[in-house]
């Protein structure tokens, strides 16, 4: 039977004396055990069928994220497993509900939150519910409450509050609730987010911040584990942290499942988890030092005793011997002097021991005021108003004795707190517990010394950490046999102290029970004893105390409840500052003080002897003394024996030592041989001769060469020289001789042939062994097989070459760069493009070795950052005065975490050209089709105009009888009419209409030629001749001469020799050339900036199965837009009157449609234009 005591969260079990029959106790324990067994065996599923089905479907699929840097709440143990308070809760929930989480280890809490928000994590343990988080998480009840504290380095004195930290750098783990809390409440703090608490505390220790806010258990755990002795806890941060389980809001059952799982964890288990992880070890250290030191002192003392005893004995013997005249007086004197020395050293030892004891005592630091100035001020302000009211009738926790003095565990704890904090409360004696609760509710009482935290009470009270825990039990009269459980007690009248937490608990949990509230526990127990009620629910500690005190003998404990009362100090909730003050006081109570209080009230002196520290001190003292006595006896007998044995020993010693030495040598040899035999290679000793005659060779040679050592030693069956590959024999000899000559070690790599003829590569290291005179005695060394390594290297080299070849064979420029833009790969085309070879390009900045890619650096960085391919198509660049186009593609390298990119450059010049031509011909075709359709439509109205004009002319100028007749009928003559019309120029107008109509008809007919495939009669023509004829034509053309003097234009002819004749229709081709010449002449004539003399350059050459004709002018050139539209019908840059704008399009159709050739123009503003006509030669053969 016991009460469990929480001493600063560390628990000790203290047996409780009781007056109830110990047999019953045994039975109870057994019953409880059975209970637990039955309880465990019971297979009642707490989940609803839907929840169960959902859970089964999601077994091992629910992702739980565990933080790795938050000990002892959540961290990774040395095996990399998820450990800590969260892990233990998590395991219990898994065990209770029969499923497994999928645990994902995530570095920092912020990352967990991010993942949860992104829906990658289903469950997070150990986080505080906040409105912000509730947007995407739903929460269970809190399962753990911890205080947050301010940590600073030790060099900063005094207690701290958050107000003191204004303007300082304060670290907080990112994602923690503090971040928002501080932002809202202390905006003047400079918050520095750190990834994890561990990281933050380490960096705080390194001096990166001024302070850090973390949880008390976490802080003390990390400080202790990491040995960060320069840190201390400087005060509370004001924010209590409630840890709950958060789960995805969109998951239907998760929250209720986990809540149920959490509810299935008993208080006992919770306490066990907390005890396992949380404890302030420093407190235990001080007694440990003492208890180590005392036995040490005892031992020292014992040794001193032994020495003294031994000396005195020897002195006696010497004195006796001196008296008998065996020893000279001088020796006796020497002994006495030695004794004096001994005394001095003894005195020194004693002083040392004393000094160290004094030191230990003084090292205890003087008590510092724990309270902040604010708290102290508050206390001063409320002096005399602080009232504590204990439970008047709850021994041994709280009660008043006959003289009216407050007694009990609670009383003493509270008084101790008062003493520690130097504060004073008024004690108010009330009649019952209910009254106590009433008064604290009304505010007449400030604090209650011992109270259990319940939801109901939390409405008007706040609580310190619990300092004691005691289970509630069911007490009945002895005639009730058997074990009782609360749920079995339906028909019974059960007494319970009114307004106790137990009362609240049973009333809400077991509303069907017939409860009889009583004013205090003693009353209830008496009622039970007298049969007024059937049972009483009471705390075990109270029950045992009361039953014994009151001498009630007919009661027994019939069963335990699952309820534990955790006693804290309760404070009115409008005074949280008082709670902080009392918490600090409570935290100051040492283990020993607590133990003393509990022993006094609960234990009644029956601590088992082995739990007393004094016992252990005494025991170690006694054992030291016993040990000393044994030593003395031993020393004495050894002294006697040594005299006898000394002579014998001396005689046999030398012989024996020699034997030992020889044995050791043999052993060492054997070890060496075994070792060498196990080596994967040859250790050898050989002569420096051509045969390399071995005097020793290790077992490994059989595996390496195929010859056993016996064959090689002394070159008996085969010499090592012959084992070496014939080609390598001489080099090996030369290298070894050179090394020996210089007396340095040699390292060789060569081939050998094994007994089976296999070729192997070996690596050898050896050196000459020289006599002191410098004479070579032998060679010693080690040979090892490197065939595999060689092979691997070879394969690697081949693979590398193969890949290199592939990259080099690519028809693109391929360049690899690293994150800094340095070249890591440079293929053959890159080399050809830049003229820089791979070896000098590697490692250099891309923009240095490939300047025109400098503009692509942005794309390269973008590709690396976004891990996406980037493209830059048809980039123009100048090469030897010609515009080339290239496609640049940047591929990010994503494998193996290598940051970098590959740049691919493809020459797109040809493609761009073809594309342009295709677009052009496509466009022209559609225009041609359109024009033809339109021409047809225009023909009809044109015919109307032209016909009417002719009829009009006929009727005016024709000498038809009808004209004369009609004129006469009208009273005029044709002559008069004509002269009128002539004078009024009507006739010329009519001619002008006819002219216009005819021109329109001409245009239409030209346009029609776009779509009409003319019936060609190609004849072989010399292109050069055609060009020359065209020039002659141009010179004689009247229209042309009118506008520009063609003779002023210089003509340069560059005709390749041996160009075959081209099948074409000469007149049409001349028409084309004439059009081009006209166009060029016009351009040059119209160019005011013309610096050079106008010049045409004609070039002809063969290009595959085509003949290429270039007509280049040195006029102003064309802009890109003009160049692209120059062949379009009606496109003209000239004035309206200058031309129809059809010349070049007609030419285009003549070349492309009629002759199956191509026609294009190359031009740039300021550099003239070159018309290129290509005509196929093939037509000739067809």
């Amino acid at each position, binding site marked *: 039977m016991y009460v469990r005591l929480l001493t600063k969260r560390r628990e000790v079990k203290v047996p409780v004396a009781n007056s109830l029959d110990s047999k019953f106790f045994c039975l109870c324990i057994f019953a409880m055990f059975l209970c637990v067994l039955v309880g465990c065996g019971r297979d009642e599923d707490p989940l609803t069928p839907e929840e169960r089905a959902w859970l089964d479907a999601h077994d091992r699929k629910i992702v739980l994220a565990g933080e790795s840097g938050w000990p002892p709440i959540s961290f990774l143990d040395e095996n990399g497993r998820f450990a800590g308070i969260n892990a233990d809760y998590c395991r219990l929930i898994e065990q209770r509900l029969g499923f497994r989480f999928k645990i994902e280890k995530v570095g920092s809490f912020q990352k967990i939150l991010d993942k949860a928000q992104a829906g990658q994590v289903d469950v997070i343990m150990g986080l505080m519910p906040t409105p912000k988080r509730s947007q995407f998480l739903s929460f269970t009840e809190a399962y753990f409450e911890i205080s947050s504290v301010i940590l600073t380095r030790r060099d900063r004195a005094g207690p701290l509050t958050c107000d003191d930290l204004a303007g300082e750098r304060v670290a907080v783990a990112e994602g923690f609730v503090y971040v928002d809390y501080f932002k809202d409440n202390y905006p003047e703090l400079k918050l520095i987010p750190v990834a994890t608490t561990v990281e933050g505390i380490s960096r705080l220790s390194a001096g990166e911040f001024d302070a850090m806010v973390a949880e008390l258990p976490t802080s003390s755990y990390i400080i202790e584990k990491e040995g960060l002795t320069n840190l201390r806890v400087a005060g509370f941060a004001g924010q209590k942290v409630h840890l709950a389980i958060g789960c995805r809001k969109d998951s239907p059952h998760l929250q209720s499942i986990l809540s149920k799982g959490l509810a299935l964890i008993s208080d006992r288990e919770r306490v066990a988890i907390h005890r396992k992880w949380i404890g302030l070890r420093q407190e235990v250290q001080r007694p440990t030092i003492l208890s180590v030191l005392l036995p040490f002192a005892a031992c020292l003392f014992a040794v001193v005793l032994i020495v003294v005893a031994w000396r005195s004995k020897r002195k006696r013997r010497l004195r006796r011997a001196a008296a008998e005249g065996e020893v000279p007086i001088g020796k006796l004197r020497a002994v006495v002097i030695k004794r004096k020395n001994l005394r001095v050293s003894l005195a020194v030892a004693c002083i040392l021991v004393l000094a160290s004891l004094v030191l230990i005592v003084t090292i205890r630091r003087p008590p510092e005021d724990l309270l902040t100035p604010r708290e102290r001020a508050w206390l001063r302000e409320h002096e005399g108003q602080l009232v504590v009211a204990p439970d008047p009738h709850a021994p041994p926790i709280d009660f008043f004795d006959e003289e009216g003095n407050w007694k009990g565990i609670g009383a003493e704890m509270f008084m101790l707190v008062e003493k520690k904090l130097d504060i004073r409360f008024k004690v108010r004696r009330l009649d019952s517990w209910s009254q106590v609760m009433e008064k604290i509710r009304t505010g007449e009482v400030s604090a209650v010394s011992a109270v259990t935290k319940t939801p109901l009470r939390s409405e008007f009270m706040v609580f310190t950490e619990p300092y004691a825990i005691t289970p509630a039990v069911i007490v009945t009269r002895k005639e009730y046999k058997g074990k009782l459980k609360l749920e079995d007690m339906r028909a019974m009248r059960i007494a319970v102290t009114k307004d106790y937490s137990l009362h609240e608990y049973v009333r809400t949990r077991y509303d069907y029970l017939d409860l009889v509230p009583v004013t205090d526990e003693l009353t209830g127990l008496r009622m039970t004893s007298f049969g007024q009620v059937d049972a009483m629910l009471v705390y075990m500690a109270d029950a045992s105390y009361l039953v014994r005190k009151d001498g009630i003998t007919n009661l027994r404990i019939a069963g335990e409840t699952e309820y534990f009362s955790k006693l804290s100090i309760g404070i009115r909730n409008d005074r949280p500052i008082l709670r902080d003050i009392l918490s600090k006081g409570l935290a100051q109570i040492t283990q020993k003080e607590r133990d003393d209080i509990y022993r006094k009230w609960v234990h009644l002196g029956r601590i088992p002897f082995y739990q007393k520290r004094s016992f252990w001190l005494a025991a170690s003292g006694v054992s030291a003394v016993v040990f000393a006595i044994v030593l003395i006896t031993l020393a004495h007998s050894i002294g006697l024996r040594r005299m006898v044995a000394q002579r014998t020993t001396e005689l046999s010693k030398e012989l024996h030592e020699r034997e030992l030495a020889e044995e050791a040598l043999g052993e060492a040899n054997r070890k060496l041989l075994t070792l060498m035999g196990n080596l994967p290679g040859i250790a050898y000793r050989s002569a420096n001769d051509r045969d390399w005659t071995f005097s020793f060779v290790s077992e490994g040679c059989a595996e390496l060469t195929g010859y056993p050592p016996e064959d090689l030693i002394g070159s008996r069956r085969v010499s090592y020289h012959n084992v070496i590959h014939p080609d390598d024999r001489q080099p090996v000899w030369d290298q070894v001789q050179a090394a020996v000559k210089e007396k340095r070690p040699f390292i060789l790599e060569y081939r050998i042939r094994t007994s089976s003829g296999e070729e192997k590569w070996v690596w050898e290291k050896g050196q000459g062994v020289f006599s002191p005179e410098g004479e070579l005695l032998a060679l010693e060394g080690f040979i090892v097989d490197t065939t595999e390594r060689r092979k691997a290297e070879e394969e690697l080299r081949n693979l590398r070459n193969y890949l290199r070849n592939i990259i080099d064979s690519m028809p693109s420029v391929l360049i690899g760069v690293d994150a800094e833009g340095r070249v890591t790969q440079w293929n053959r085309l890159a080399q050809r493009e830049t003229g820089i070879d791979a070896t000098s390009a590697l490692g250099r900045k891309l923009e240095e070795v490939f300047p025109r890619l400098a503009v692509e650096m942005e794309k390269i960085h973008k590709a690396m950052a976004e891990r996406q391919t980037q493209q830059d198509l048809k980039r123009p660049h100048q090469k030897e005065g010609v515009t080339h186009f290239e496609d640049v593609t940047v591929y990010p390298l994503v494998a193996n975490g290598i940051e970098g990119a590959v740049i691919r450059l493809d020459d797109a010049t040809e493609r761009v050209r073809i594309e342009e031509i295709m677009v052009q011909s496509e466009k022209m075709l559609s225009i041609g089709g359109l024009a033809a359709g339109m021409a047809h439509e225009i*023909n009809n109205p*044109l015919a109307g105009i032209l016909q009417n004009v002719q*009829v009009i002319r006929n009727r005016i100028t024709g000498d038809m009888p009808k004209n004369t007749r009609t004129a006469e009928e009208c009273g005029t003559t044709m002559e008069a009419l004509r002269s009128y019309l002539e004078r009024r120029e009507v006739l010329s107008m009519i001619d002008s209409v006819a002219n216009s109509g005819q021109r329109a008809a001409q245009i239409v007919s030209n346009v029609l030629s776009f779509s009409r495939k003319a019936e060609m009669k190609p004849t072989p023509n010399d292109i050069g001749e055609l060009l020359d004829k065209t020039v002659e034509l141009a010179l004689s053309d009247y229209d042309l001469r009118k506008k520009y003097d063609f003779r002023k234009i210089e003509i340069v002819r560059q005709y390749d020799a041996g160009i075959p004749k081209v099948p074409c229709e000469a007149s049409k081709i001349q028409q084309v050339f004439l059009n081009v010449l006209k166009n060029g002449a016009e351009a040059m004539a119209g160019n005011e900036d013309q610096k050079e003399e106008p010049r045409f350059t004609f070039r002809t050459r063969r290009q595959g199965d085509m003949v290429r004709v270039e007509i280049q002018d040195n006029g102003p050139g064309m802009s890109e837009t003009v160049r692209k539209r120059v062949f379009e019908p009606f496109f003209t840059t000239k004035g309206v009157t200058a031309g129809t704008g059809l010349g070049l399009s007609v030419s285009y159709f003549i070349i492309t449609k009629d002759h199956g050739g191509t026609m294009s123009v190359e031009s740039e503003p300021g550099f003239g234009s070159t018309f290129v006509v290509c005509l196929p030669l093939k037509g000739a053969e067809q």
Partner: protein
Amino acid sequence: MIDCSHGRVLVVDDDPGIRTSLASFLEDYDFKTMAAQNAEEALELLTNESFDMAIVDLRLPGMNGEAFVLRAHELLPELRFLIYTGSVSYCLSDELVQIGLRPEHVVRKPLTDLSVLLECIEDVLQRKDQSNER
């Protein structure tokens, strides 16, 4: 040269500008000319009046020119035809060739000089007379 100034010509064209001017032109040269704006009207005229030849536009509303020529030839095998069209790519169909039309009987609009048409008409009528004499 045979005087053909009394030749009777039917002009079939839906374009009034062409139809009337052509008719006027021929009248000025003493042809007896009538005009129809579609094939149906022309056929009716053919049954009531007598003509030596017809100048036919190909694209007509309703029955097209070619069908009209075939139909008219069926009714009046003696009638001669000239095709007068704005289409550039037109070629005589086999049926028309069978009833005696030749490429020179196709005249393309627009004619910058109508005397070309006049020559064609005279040519056609002359041949007709020759065949009649035979």
